[in-house]
């Protein structure tokens, strides 16, 4: 959607990741420009979640380099608490903090971690909640919300930290079908505003609509990086062809 100045925000070079003896990511190279929306597709177990988790320091990597604004994230002295404020992440299982209300969930990071002024954050939170249509639920507890509502709150919680990049890992995968739409719409809205995003999803039509670039991974390797229209009409590799066929009945 947005093809802005080619300022590289995140660069992954020769990334290598193993669990015990099993190689999960093998020589992954990818760069993400500011304002770019990159969608990662691939069969289950190919390493999509692992890739996102590495970018957010939730997994240690065994080789290669990850650079954020040209600063390496594999140095020993990387301050992940600091980096994670710039690289937000939303997970599949909409984990809101169960003992806090919606607004407390949202304020925790900005106020306690970023030490921002509470009133200022509150104002931003209200705007974001309004945008996802949940302003009236700000004093609810997570257990009082539907899956789709929780996932939208989780997105707001991440956004309120003012991240520069957002990582989404199958955020609609555990939702009932009728709630998928409301969450995808929020992400589409972010894309329109020029948010830089790395999205893992199994919703192919959404992927096609939102992506500037499709990355197809199989067995821990990037097989193909394509323009979305090209990927869905003329996939370059046989594996991608095979993957797309599985979604057609």
């Amino acid at each position, binding site marked *: 959607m947005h093809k802005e100045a080619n300022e590289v925000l995140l660069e992954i070079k020769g990334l290598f990741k193993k669990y015990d003896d099993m190689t999960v990511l093998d020589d992954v190279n990818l760069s993400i420009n500011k304002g770019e929306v990159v969608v990662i597709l691939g069969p289950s177990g190919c390493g999509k979640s692992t890739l996102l988790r590495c970018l957010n320091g939730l997994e240690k990597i065994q080789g290669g380099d990850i650079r954020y604004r040209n600063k390496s994230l594999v140095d020993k002295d990387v301050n992940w608490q600091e980096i994670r404020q710039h690289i937000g992440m939303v997970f599949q299982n909409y984990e809101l903090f169960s*003992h806090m209300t919606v607004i407390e969930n949202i304020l925790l990071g900005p106020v*306690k*971690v970023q030490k921002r002024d509470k009133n200022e954050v509150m104002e931003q939170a209200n705007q974001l909640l309004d945008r996802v249509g949940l302003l009236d639920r700000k004093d609810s507890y997570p257990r009082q919300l539907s899956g789709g509502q929780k996932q939208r709150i989780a997105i707001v919680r991440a956004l309120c*930290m003012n991240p520069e990049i957002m990582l989404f890992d199958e955020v609609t995968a555990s939702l009932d079908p009728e709630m998928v739409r409301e969450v995808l719409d929020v992400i589409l809205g972010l894309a329109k505003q020029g948010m830089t995003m790395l999205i893992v999803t199994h919703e192919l039509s959404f992927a096609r609509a939102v992506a500037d670039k499709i990355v197809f991974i199989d067995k821990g390797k990037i097989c193909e990086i394509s323009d979305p229209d090209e990927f869905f009409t003329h996939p370059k590799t046989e594996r991608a062809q095979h993957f797309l066929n599985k979604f057609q009945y």
Partner: protein
Amino acid sequence: MQNLGINVFLKGRNMIRLFEGLMVTARIALIAIIIGSLLGIVLGVVWTSKSKWIRSVCRIYLEMFRIIPILVWLFIMYFGVTTVLNIDLSGEFVSIIVFTLWGAAEMGDIVRGALESLPKHQIESGKAIGLSFWGLYRYILIPQAVRRMLPGAINLATRMVKTTSLVVLIGVIDVIKVGQQIIETSRIEVPTASFWVYGFLFILYFVICYPLSVLSRRLENKWNG
């Protein structure tokens, strides 16, 4: 005479004696609950260790109190241990020891359960908004663990209060023993004394334990609901 049965409480020092008995019961329960809980928290944290050996020792310790009745523990400690070691311990002291060890075992299990039941995702979400190690404990893990263990801990406290009624069997003059003595001495003058005294004890235990059990149910509904 019938309508004067309640006067049994006003005769002589009966009221004061009941109160003294109550203090003995309360002392045993309170000390055991407080020290037992503190030891239990330490035990519970140690219990979450990855070492199989440490986990087994903790488990065996708990099972010893689950399998062997508390009454038997009281007898072992009061008659057995004091004879073997040739020391003289008061019944009240032995009671406090046994109840504290038991409370620690059960509390340890409750704390272990609470810590282990916290979902891993909550930790990762906390990290994802930039919380530090201590921030995670302070804002996420401790508040959630306390919520999970409080209903169980209150329940344990009421069980301990009720079980103190066994200490009379190793010679401790607790509130129940005092009650029995009052019934004995007033049997001729006040034939209905047992009704009044046991009724009083019933209400006494109820007044202590019921609010606790209501509180634990409320918290459970509020937090798990």
